[in-house]
C-alpha cells in the first residue's frame, strides 16, 4: 500500500518536510511541489536528510516549480526525478494513497 507524500513547503522555512521524511515508510514516494521544490537542490543543509530518505523511497520534484525559482535541474540531488504536471497525475494514480504535508 504505497503512499505518495506531497510536500509544498520549503524545508528551510518550516518543519513540514522534515515531518514528512520522519513519517514516510520504505516504498513510499515523495513529490516536491511549489516552495518545496527548492529542497531538491544538492549541497544544502537539508540535502543529507533527503538523501537518507532516498535509500528506500522514490523522490520527485515538479520541474516547473524548480525552474520558477531559478534552480536548474543540474544542481539537484542525483536520483531525484523531475516530473511535469502529467507526471504528477501519474504519481497520484500509481499510488494507493496520497498525503499532503501542508
Amino acid at each position: 500500500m504505497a503512499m505518495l507524500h506531497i510536500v509544498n513547503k520549503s524545508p528551510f522555512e518550516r518543519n513540514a518536510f522534515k515531518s514528512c521524511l520522519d513519517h514516510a515508510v520504505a516504498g513510499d514516494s515523495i513529490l516536491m511541489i511549489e516552495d518545496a521544490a527548492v529542497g531538491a537542490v544538492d549541497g544544502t543543509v537539508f540535502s543529507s536528510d533527503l538523501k537518507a530518505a532516498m535509500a528506500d523511497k522514490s523522490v520527485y520534484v515538479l520541474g516547473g516549480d524548480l525552474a520558477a525559482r531559478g534552480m536548474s535541474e543540474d544542481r539537484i540531488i542525483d536520483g531525484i526525478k523531475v516530473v511535469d504536471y502529467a507526471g504528477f497525475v501519474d504519481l497520484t494514480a500509481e499510488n494507493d494513497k496520497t498525503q499532503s504535508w501542508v
Partner: protein
Amino acid sequence: MATKKFMYVNRKAPYGTVYALESLEVVLIAAAFEQDVSLAFIDDGVYQIAKGQNTDGIGMKNFSATYNALGDYEINKLYVEKESLEERGLTEDDLMPIVWEDEDDDWAEKPSIRIVSRAEMADILADQDVHYSF
C-alpha cells in the same frame, strides 16, 4: 516630516505564496513617499532574487525582472544574508546582478546587493525605524 528608515524583511520563496510579490508591490508604492528604504533577504527570501527564474511551467507572471527597476525608485540597499545563501547551497553568483545608476556620478552603475553575515543583519535590522515582514 523627518525621513524614517523603512525595512522590508523578505523570508519566503516566490510563487508558492503571494508574500514576495506583495512585498515588492508595497515597496514600489511606498517609494513615492521618499523615505530611506532597505530590503532584507533572509531564509528562503534569497530565492526571490535568484537569477534565471522561468515561470513558463507554472503559468504565473515572472516578476523577478522588476527587482532590477528598484534602482529607478532610489531603492539601492538590498541586504542578503550570507548564511541563508550557504544553507541553500547558493552564492552571490546565483543572484541577479541588481544595480542602480548614480545620477551624481554620470549615471555609473553600482551594485545594490550587499551580502552581510547573520550578525551584521541583526544589527542592520536593529537600526531601522519601521519593519514590514513578508
